[in-house]
């Protein structure tokens, strides 16, 4: 094998190795970011659920009845 061929093989082999490692690290990083995004999405869902429940509490018929009873009659 000529010297240039040997250099080419070694270079090619090294590039493939570095590429494989890079792809693997990138995949892990993307997966980690995806996990974080999913947690953030879950947190947003929870906040939304929390707000909806607070709203439901404010709008429920018994609370509205109480408020109507407390409000002064405009005719009086």
């Amino acid at each position, binding site marked *: 094998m000529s010297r240039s061929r040997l250099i080419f093989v070694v270079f090619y082999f090294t590039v493939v190795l570095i590429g494989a490692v890079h792809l693997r690290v990138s995949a892990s990083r993307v*997966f*980690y970011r995806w*996990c974080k995004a999913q947690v953030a999405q879950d947190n947003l869902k929870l*906040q939304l*659920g929390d707000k909806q429940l607070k709203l*439901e*509490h404010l*709008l429920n*018929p*018994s609370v509205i009845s109480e408020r109507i009873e407390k409000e002064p009659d405009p005719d009086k």
Partner: protein
Amino acid sequence: MKTKPHIIGIGLLLVIVFGLLSWRVFYLQYCRADTYLAQSYEGTHAHVPDLPQRGRIMDSRGRVLAASNKVLTVFIDPSQLPHWDDVMETACLLQPILEIPAPNICDIVHEKIRLSYVPIKTGITEQERRAIRQARLKGVGIESKWERYIPMEQLTSHIVGFIGGADDPSSPDKVGLAGIERRYDSLLRGSKGQRVLIVDARRFPIGSDPQRTVEVKNGSSLVLTIDGTIQEFARSALIKQYADYQAESAIAIVMNPWNGAILALVSLPDYNPSEFSKADPDTMRNRALTDPFEPGSIFKPIVAAIALDGGFVGYDEQIYCENGNYAKYRIGEWAGHSFGNLTPKEILTQSSNIGMAKIGQKMGRKNLYEGLRMFGFGARTGIDLPAENPGLLKPTADWSSYTVTRIPYGHEINVTTIQIIRAFAILANGGSPVMPHLVRSVTDEKGVVEQMAKKSNLAGQLIKPEVAHWVVREALTNVVKEGTGQQAALEKWEAFGKTGTANIAVNGQYDTTNYTASFVGGAPAKNPAVVVLVSIRKPNKALGKGYSGGRVAAPVFREIMQNTLTYIEKNQL
């Protein structure tokens, strides 16, 4: 050729060494393979349990009656903070984030110093969560747990129920302990999942293992037949009268007579299901289902309908009512009234006990018993709530000679209010049996309907439509127009119904001071949209305001009916 001894020795040594190495490899690879595989697996994988979100319970208009949401709790693990100085330092760092003074945090930790989990604050905000994460405090963690919210609180306490600790003490899950939460627990709970992640040396996730991952299945949601607005009409009307008359308990039920759907169900006293552990157990009983009682006069239309349907009595037949004293059977009339000849319509309008006793005698034991069984008395209605009592209708073999004269006016029989309202629903819809029910449909977490409630109209016809129509449109409308139920009359619609003022039996004798005041009926008479039952137990007679069904229960019926029909009309439900 002679082999040198030291070469043989070296050879033997090499054989032994390689033999031992081979044995070690065999031991590690074969005998201890499971252990090391497990260790390797544990080091590269993380298991994250996924607890399912319990399904929602909603009313018929989509308002939330119960829902789960995650609550975040900050905790300290004192085992991670070996010195008290570490605890104080952590408390000082937590103080500005949680707005809890550091000495208070130290006190909380000091009380539970031997535990590895000391909750500091529950229900932290997203900002607080982020601040704690960024601070990266040693020994401080954030735990998330599903929490159940019941926005309508008391309003639907006996319907929705509550959840609590599981029967299995090792299980972290909560199970339904009362109401719909209990009856439909398996549907609402869902099933646990587990995410399996591939992690690096720092335990950061770098991939997932889908083959070992078990997907979490959130619980299904339920849409009830209950309408929160009608429930509020019923509760607010009932609670006023319950307080005004210092009653022991009270029940109001609103039902669609055509399919048995319960639109409102109130049992007083009630409780706050969000704080059920503080509630008096007596308030937690859904009396509409659990407390059978002698119904008194509200039972009369049912027996009259059975008698008319069987031809035991004619519509215009005159029945002699003994001028108020049926001495042979020791029966008198309500409030000392005295009647001569009455038709069945007049018997119901005037609520004559003697007239009903004579109708019972005309029917005879067997026919009366079979008719009542056909209407479902003495058996559970099958409503989808737990702890339903079947009531008591004794077999004819156990009847005394008086029984056939007592049952027709609602004595010597125990019924629940749900059985009574179902019977009135049957009369109102023209004689078709219905099953009282609370669940309209089951949906998945996105709101897509998984299944509708079973068809609740049962096969067959219990009584002829003309009999049911006559009882409702002729006799029971007359009770409201001219009889004991005049306070139930509505302005815009024609109501029908029947009053009841039943003595309460105590130690085998009727108590003359305590009564159950009831009214059950519906409107509009020609095509009833709803039937309503109101039953108030032991209104305080000493207040001098009255204690009869017509005085105590009928006004509540009127208010509920007036509001409900207006609401239905305006919303075109």
